């Protein structure tokens, strides 16, 4: 998504590295001007080590942009990305790239959040359905009554229906055979 945005902005030479190993070697081969990496990526320390070593090379990669760009960097960290830039690259070229990445990352994070929410809602419904079926079998009742039982138990104990359903399923799993 970020790469797409960068390409749309007219940057043609965008590489995405996904492998856990060989990160440093791949970077050396590509010799990028700017490196963007997710803050949550555990390889960041490895990356910084290679940048520290790169100071001996002809194209040293600096840790972050110039001090004057502190605000942009701070925004990037808030968005969950960090950026490394080859020393000497003009600031006016970097800033728009970074700002674009930040906007894209925010959009991406929002999408992921929505996806996770949808997923957990689906999982909750499945749990409740499973508990209903178990209740229907055990008590020989219909679906509406089973649901009403779960709901009443939830209200009485001040818990969410899905929590009651989950507890019921695990008790069933432990004691189910004894009926």
């Amino acid at each position, binding site marked *: 998504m970020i790469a797409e945005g960068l390409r749309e902005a007219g940057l043609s030479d965008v590489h995405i590295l996904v492998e856990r190993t060989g990160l440093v070697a791949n970077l050396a081969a590509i010799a990028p001007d700017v490196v963007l990496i997710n803050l949550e990526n555990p390889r960041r*320390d*490895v990356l910084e*080590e290679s940048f*520290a070593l790169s100071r001996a090379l002809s194209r040293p990669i600096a840790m972050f942009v110039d001090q004057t760009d502190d605000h942009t960097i701070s925004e990037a960290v808030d968005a969950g990305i960090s950026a490394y830039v080859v020393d000497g690259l003009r600031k006016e070229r970097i800033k728009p790239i970074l700002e674009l990445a930040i906007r894209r990352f925010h959009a991406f994070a929002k999408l992921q959040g929505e996806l996770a929410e949808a997923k957990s809602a689906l999982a909750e419904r499945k749990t409740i359905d499973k508990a209903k079926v178990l209740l229907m079998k055990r008590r020989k009742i219909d679906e509406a009554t089973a649901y009403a039982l779960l709901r009443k138990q939830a209200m009485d104990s001040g818990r969410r229906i899905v929590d009651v359903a989950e507890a019921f399923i695990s008790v069933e799993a432990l004691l189910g055979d004894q009926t």
Partner: protein
Amino acid sequence: MTHFRIGFLPLVDAVLPIMAREGGFARQHGISIEMVRDPSWATVRDRLVYGQTDAAHLLAPLAIATSLGLERVSAPLAAPFMLGLNGNAIAVSSAIAERLGVDVSDFGNAMKVGTQLAAFAKEAAASGRKLRFAVVHRHSSHNYILRYWLAACGCNPESDVEMIVVPPSFIADALATGEVDGSCVGEPWSSVAVESGAGRIIATTNQIWSRGVEKLLAFRKSLLDERRGEVEALLRALHETGEFISDPANSLEVASVLARSDYIGQPAHLIARALKNRLALASGEGEKPINDFLLLHNEAANFPWRSQAMWLYSQMIRWGHAPHDEGGFAAAADVFRPDVYRSALENTNAIIPGASAKVEGAIQQPTGASTVRGRLILGPDRFFDGRKFDPDRPMEYLATQTQ
């Protein structure tokens, strides 16, 4: 209720802020703590520098490097409280352990084990395949202690071996796959490697420097100035937490809290080892006591000695990580804030040393030290090669260190 967001990496020595929260010690001081876990030191540092967190569990050398602007734009940090001394183990992969022919009865003799390892490493280098060691960060005590050890045992860590950075939680995997031959990492990650059969612990860092500076609690200097009273209340809460966790009777409870997936996410029995100062050196071997493996509270372990920062700076110069400049020593020492520690804990039962610096490595036997209040017995703090670091003569010390 005042709020602190504290960044940390999943390691046993993040225990003080974690238990200050979980044990209710912070709340008693009107503080709520929110722990923010990250997978890399770079991110723990960035969140602190850019204000996403208020404080951080941080590698002492990284706090110095960040303040001095050694790798990136300088961001002044202040460290009024150490989170522990020692606590790292050096392991080699099971394959290397076999070829090395480790004699278990040598364990504890850092000179003998180190000399054996150094000779083996030089042989490997001569045959064209250097041993590769993992450390957790360029600016880590792990890196500096491992280098110190190898160098003092006759092996040049710059040319005879390869040193690479591997995040703590990947160490066991890196040893198992042969990505690295050895590692120096904080607990529980060496125990995880041992448990899975990936590696054997051959030394612990306290055998190399028996009172080694390790993690600290770092604040932005500006935040410390603005919220000084709240920071001091937090330090008092951490001190009380230290009393609680240093009681062996509480080890299992503490370990089971740390084991939670939002903290370390590893089995409690592995985490408990460091807390009890007992480690299993290899898979299937029983736990053995390792005195002073990890000091979290006793002996005023949380006091930030300026000389600790200066020793680290000497090693940063030694390995080309910092400019060869005497002024850097004072700047490094200024990151450590014994003055804040003193004013925070002056009306508590904490031991408060009278001096702010000491000759590192000078204590052979438990020795009484002058205090403002309390009785302080400092345990042996010697380096395994018997060298001493006098903070009044840092350049002389540096001149005697070979690379």
